[in-house]
């Protein structure tokens, strides 16, 4: 049975001791510095061996899968509005090398990753996954950003893919999706809903024309 969720405020860099306290379903708010990074950053670091213009390891151990709603004024000043995470599942292939290169211990994103990813990539690196909520809580998260320190690689990667370094205070709410043991909140909830989903389909006859991929064998026709 799930325990009653607790609320944590974590300061960056988040310590191994603080990470050990987290259980799936707990609520988290962050204080300190976090940086955004998604395929733009990962491709450059992992595939192309480029070194980011800022030492990520020294900066923070929290990486946020995010593209902010932001604009750059003529004078170069940065205007940041809402902040929303982007779906994380597609970054799986970069994570192993990225953990090594960046020393990240906390990934903040949307939708989580697979239990296999937690087991193979997160647990060995002592890392956890925190999911944003909703997922439309862009205004709340935007409020949690107190200052934009920098937007690196803005010229080359554009607003969405640039590495935004954000000073944050009570940044959240976030939910613990995976803990240090690799448990997953989403997978737990998927298992809990599976039976009711089956019940909803009971008695509904399948459509006369199947779709390719719905049949088990590739030799089957859809009719």
């Amino acid at each position, binding site marked *: 049975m799930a325990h009653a969720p607790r609320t944590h405020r974590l300061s960056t860099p988040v310590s191994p001791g603080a990470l050990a306290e987290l259980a799936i379903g707990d609520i988290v708010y962050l204080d300190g510095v976090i940086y955004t990074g998604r395929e733009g950053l990962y491709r450059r670091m992992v595939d192309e061996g480029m070194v980011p213009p800022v030492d990520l390891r020294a900066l923070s151990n929290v990486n946020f899968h995010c593209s902010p*709603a932001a604009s750059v004024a003529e004078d170069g000043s940065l205007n*940041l509005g809402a902040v929303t995470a982007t779906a994380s599942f597609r970054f799986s292939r970069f994570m192993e090398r990225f953990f090594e290169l960046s020393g990240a211990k906390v990934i903040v994103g949307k939708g989580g990753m697979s239990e296999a990813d937690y087991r193979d990539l997160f647990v060995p690196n002592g890392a956890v996954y925190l999911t944003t909520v909703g997922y439309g809580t862009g205004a709340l998260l935007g409020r949690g950003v107190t200052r934009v320190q920098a937007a690196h690689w803005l010229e080359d990667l*554009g607003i969405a893919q640039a590495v935004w370094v954000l000073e944050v205070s009570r940044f959240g709410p976030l939910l613990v999706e995976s803990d240090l043991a690799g448990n997953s909140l*989403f997978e737990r909830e998927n298992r809990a809903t599976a039976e*009711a989903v089956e019940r909803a389909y009971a008695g509904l006859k399948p*459509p006369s024309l199947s779709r390719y991929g719905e049949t088990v064998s590739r030799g089957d026709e859809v009719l």
Partner: protein
Amino acid sequence: MSEIARDLLHEAASEIMARAAIEIPRDYRDGIRGMLGQEQHELSRFVLEAMLENWEAAEADRRAMCADTGVPRFYVKAGNEARPEGGFVALEEAVRAATAEATRSVPLRPNRVHPLWRTDHDNNVGINAPEIEYSFEPDADWIELTTVHKGGLFGTDYRMLFPADGMDGIKRFFLDTLVQFGRRGLACQPAIVGIGLGGSKDTSMTLGKQAACLRPVGEPNPDPGIAKLEAELKELGNNIGMGPMGFVGSSMVIDCHVEVGYTHTGGMPMSVHCFCLSSRRATARVHAGGEVEYRSDPRWFTPYMRRETVGWPTRLARTA
């Protein structure tokens, strides 16, 4: 007959871009409050409460409610007597300019890129972007501009069903779409689920999307048979034991809207669309006299839009 000033249309387009991005429509917010009253599960409740707080923060800070801009688009309803200054080409120019300006001023995340080259003008404008769709209204001299910023990636599907599949087929495909995108909350539910039934493939997609994005929560289809189907589907969707983010719960479908079009006698195309926790829409009615009224209900599906007669005397229609 007086023309509707180009500047006025431009101003109205800019205003609705900002309103849509920042202010959650009241019907949607009230619907979520209602769902919170029903929801028994703690995690699902937590998400709904966070969303209510988020919309308050967005309005207080004049900040976009979600940083994912979705794909901003426009629906134009023109009165048959309306004459925009410079014609509809000028109106389209104004709408494109307003999109680019709002991207910078709100700010909105530049979301629109070329599908192959990923070219990004950082302003949500490009080839076929924003889309502009039209409808007309008899005996009116105003122009209504509606913008919708619908989340773009998950929660939509299309399938060709056949008459023999009947209600079972409709319900199954409805469930398929909700479950596949409801897990982990990819559809950012609770959603206004729009369903397009009939027409041809593209019509079914267009109608379903309009049903999701252009009808307010709580407004049933005027056809009692369709309204009954809407209520049944809503009930079904809220009984798969899944709530926001795919957590255990009962808050999946805030409302279900079905729109239909006459279709091929042998088929029943169906599309399903989820309008998400950031159900962003705003409308301006711009009158020839210069007044502008703003609202969040697009009133897109007028009796004229849904007209069902052939328009001339005929023998009694046959129904199956």
